[in-house]
């Protein structure tokens, strides 16, 4: 059989016969049969056949036929109409079989699906709508996160609330509405003055990196309150102090939940005051209730004042 095949194919261009065999072209049945036989026993011929077949199939599979771009068919039709000199040239839709008109929805759909070229890349137009959607969503999330919640105790607190008083006083200090009347940076001197004016032994911490700029005292519902202000550059720490028995008979108010948390954790800390950008911290120092408000970030405030509640 091999000899017959060799004889039959002798003098023929084997390479090109293999090409015809791969493309199923041009070969009569007898030649095809001999080519198949050749491939089955001749390693070199098999390799040549298989390699060329792989090249053909590889290109065909990787470089697939492209679809006709949307609008090309109708554009060419319209051009032909124009060439014909037709006075009533009609815009013929993309359908290749019928003359039909797309509905508005179909036109809209076609608009968004039509590729938009960016260099060598073509992306559907809806890609931009999707990108815009996620951008707006992200922006909304960021803005929403930036909007602070409001502490419920502050929101529901009355004028007797220590938290409400402390936060409001802090913002009055910032605006200059409240100014220290005891303008001394000497801790001992201030302590002495307060003891004389307020009749309680105030706790005046020596906060590292912050300078005591002054103090003031006042009465509320017959209870003495001392106020201290520290600063370091633009950073301000305000401390509101009153003796614990001010809470008796609700002269001043402290929610029991807050009180319990202070007993449990030694302090109460929060920064949710809506547009009043500040942090609040409360603790007990001996028999004195201390409430501090500052424009420091919550965590920094905690680390700065943590020493003093222990």
């Amino acid at each position: 059989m091999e000899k017959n095949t060799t004889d039959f194919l002798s003098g023929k261009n084997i390479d090109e016969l293999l090409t015809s065999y791969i493309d199923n072209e041009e070969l009569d049945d007898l030649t095809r049969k001999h080519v198949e036989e050749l491939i089955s026993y001749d390693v070199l011929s098999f390799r040549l056949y298989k390699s060329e077949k792989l090249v053909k199939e590889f290109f065909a599979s990787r470089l697939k036929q492209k679809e006709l771009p949307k609008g090309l068919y109708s554009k060419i039709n319209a051009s032909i109409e124009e060439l014909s000199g037709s006075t009533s040239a009609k815009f013929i839709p993309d359908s290749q079989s019928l003359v039909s008109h797309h509905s508005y929805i179909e036109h809209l759909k076609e608009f968004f699906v039509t590729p938009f070229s960016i260099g060598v890349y073509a992306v559907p137009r809806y890609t931009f709508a999707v990108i815009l959607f996620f951008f707006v969503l992200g922006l909304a999330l960021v803005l929403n996160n930036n909007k602070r919640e409001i502490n419920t105790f502050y929101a529901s607190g009355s004028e007797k609330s220590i938290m409400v008083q402390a936060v409001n006083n802090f913002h009055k200090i910032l605006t200059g509405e409240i100014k220290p009347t005891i303008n001394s940076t000497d801790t001992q001197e201030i302590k002495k003055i307060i003891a004389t004016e307020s009749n309680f032994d105030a706790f005046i911490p020596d906060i590292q990196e912050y300078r005591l700029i002054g103090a003031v005292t006042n009465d509320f519902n017959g209870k003495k309150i001392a106020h201290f202000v520290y600063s370091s550059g633009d950073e301000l720490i305000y401390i509101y102090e009153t003796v614990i028995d001010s809470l008796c008979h609700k002269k001043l108010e402290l929610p029991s939940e807050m009180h319990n948390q202070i007993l449990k954790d030694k302090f109460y800390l929060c920064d949710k005051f809506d547009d009043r950008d500040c942090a609040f911290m409360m603790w007990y120092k001996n028999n004195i209730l201390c409430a501090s408000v500052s424009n420091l970030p919550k965590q920094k405030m905690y680390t700065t004042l943590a020493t003093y509640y222990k």
Partner: protein
Amino acid sequence: MLKDNNSEINSSDKIDLVDEFSESDSSALEDLSANELTERKRLFDIEAMPHMKLLYNYAYRLTSNQMEAEDLVQDTYLRAFRFFHRFERGTNCKAWMFRILKNCYINQYRKTKKEPSKVDYEEVENFYDSIRSEAVDPNDLEQKVFSNLLDDDLIIALNSLQDDYKTVVILCDLEGLSYEEIAEFLEVPIGTVRSRLHRGRKILEKKLRDYAKERGYAVETEA
């Protein structure tokens, strides 16, 4: 007419090729009656319009650019419509359209390039002869070469082929045309189509092996 094998395309050949239709043809559109025009449009719709996708794909492979391919197809159809009276009904309209497209492409090419390119068939033949008997293990070819190549590599390899080889590879392997259709389009014998196809694929295989080798995937060849 494009000469076959071992010759260069010279300027006079190109003039014959691109001036297939004379602009002074007496059957210009302006001379047609309304009825004749309508009839031409009707027949053109039946005969020529169905080949648009195939022509577009061929134009895209020639130009590698969607916009240019669209323009080329549009020019082709306008020209075909204008000279539709030169098309003999019952013959292969697809081949006729392909020839017009190729002429339009060459015309466009002549406008954009300073010098028309020349095909040195002898150089191609010599190269082919040097690689003709190389055979690789098809498994190696598939696993080491093809699976590691990007589509860009294929396009570069295809575009680097000489036009005549590139045309037959595109028309047969990508467009699925038969040898007979390609022969009719190129106006060459079927044997020539087969020969160019075989050589084009062989050269492509060599180029792809070279790209793979650059990336560290070498395959051994046997002569």
